């Protein structure tokens, strides 16, 4: 089925490596919190200070924000806008594309500067791109990641009785 062919899964090891990279990034640039969101709007990971907003809603809007800006980029003749910056009075966010499939969002306040966030973000994006490329290369292939729903037809039926 084409749907599952484009699916991807990450293991606990992947998750550990991603989290570690993000923790280092936050410490380096003194930002509050980093979120990884996939382009379809699913939240992949949250690191740092726990956000006090609904992270699922945040992830959805981030993906929409990025997609809309992607289209805007095309309209003005750019391939994409690989990063976006939203400035607030106290809180600001910086968003960057990772491997064309994931978005890294960082929330920061006046304890740091946009310049520092931007520099550190660039390095982190390179690191994350390498990590994610391994995850995507593995894809949803059955050998690497066992299909937890295989043969679960009865259980699925029961869930919807």
């Amino acid at each position, binding site marked *: *089925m084409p*749907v*599952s062919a*484009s*699916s991807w899964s990450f293991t606990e090891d992947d*998750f550990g490596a991603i989290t570690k990279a993000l923790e280092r990034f936050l410490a380096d640039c003194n930002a509050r919190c980093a979120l990884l969101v996939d382009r379809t709007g699913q939240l992949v990971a949250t690191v740092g200070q726990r956000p006090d907003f609904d992270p699922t809603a945040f992830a959805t809007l981030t993906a929409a924000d990025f*997609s809309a800006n992607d289209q805007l980029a095309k309209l003005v003749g750019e391939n994409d806008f690989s990063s976006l910056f939203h400035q607030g009075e106290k809180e600001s966010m910086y968003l960057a594309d990772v491997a064309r499939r994931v978005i890294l969002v960082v929330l920061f306040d006046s304890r740091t500067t946009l310049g520092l966030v931007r520099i550190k973000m660039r390095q982190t994006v390179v690191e994350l791109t390498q990590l994610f490329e391994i995850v995507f290369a593995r894809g949803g292939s059955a050998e690497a*990641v066992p299909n937890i729903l295989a043969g*679960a037809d009865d259980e699925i039926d029961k869930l919807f009785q």
Partner: protein
Amino acid sequence: MSMINYASREINCKIVYYGPGLGGKTTNLEHVYGKVQPDTRGKLISLATETERTLFFDFLPVDLGTIRGFKTRFHLYTVPGQVYYNASRKLILKGVDGIVFVGDSQVERMEANQEAMQNLYDNMAEYGYDLTTMPFVIQYNKRDLPNAASIRELQASLNPGWEVTESTRMRPLADPAHPGERLIEQLPTGEWIERAPYLEAVAVSGEGVFETLRAVSKLVLKSLA
């Protein structure tokens, strides 16, 4: 594109409600939001205009239960019904796992329904998705209205069936929801066709809303199994 998170033990799937403007897509989500336990759903996000027309999308995450220790989390989206917003409609379809087409039963909306269905096929094709091979259900909404077309007319217009090419699927398949009807059947011409499952609904009163959600999410999970 479903996402399985082994760390939080979650399976995340994306379902998109598609259809003509003012057909009841947002109403479907609002009903689900109002009826499910608050601890099994997230916030209902609406990016709408001042006149409550969907501008970008509505979004509602709901948990439908646990399978093999994994929480099944469905992200429900609606798209703007107005053709004017096609660019944002298309964006929402990215990574979709299941589609609900919310058709407006009113005779006067037949053309708008057809236009939206064609637009759905076109937008899906642009992403390389094939609607005929993925979880897809049709909801005929507003069945309570006096000017509602008959199911037979709606089916003929919006769900006439697509050709079955796989020989293993060329066998009659009864429609479990409608006795005497078939999802896969052979036409007198010898051609085998398959139709999407359909449901009847009155979304404002909630009739058929959960049945639709159940039908599509079950198909999505089965497509992963």
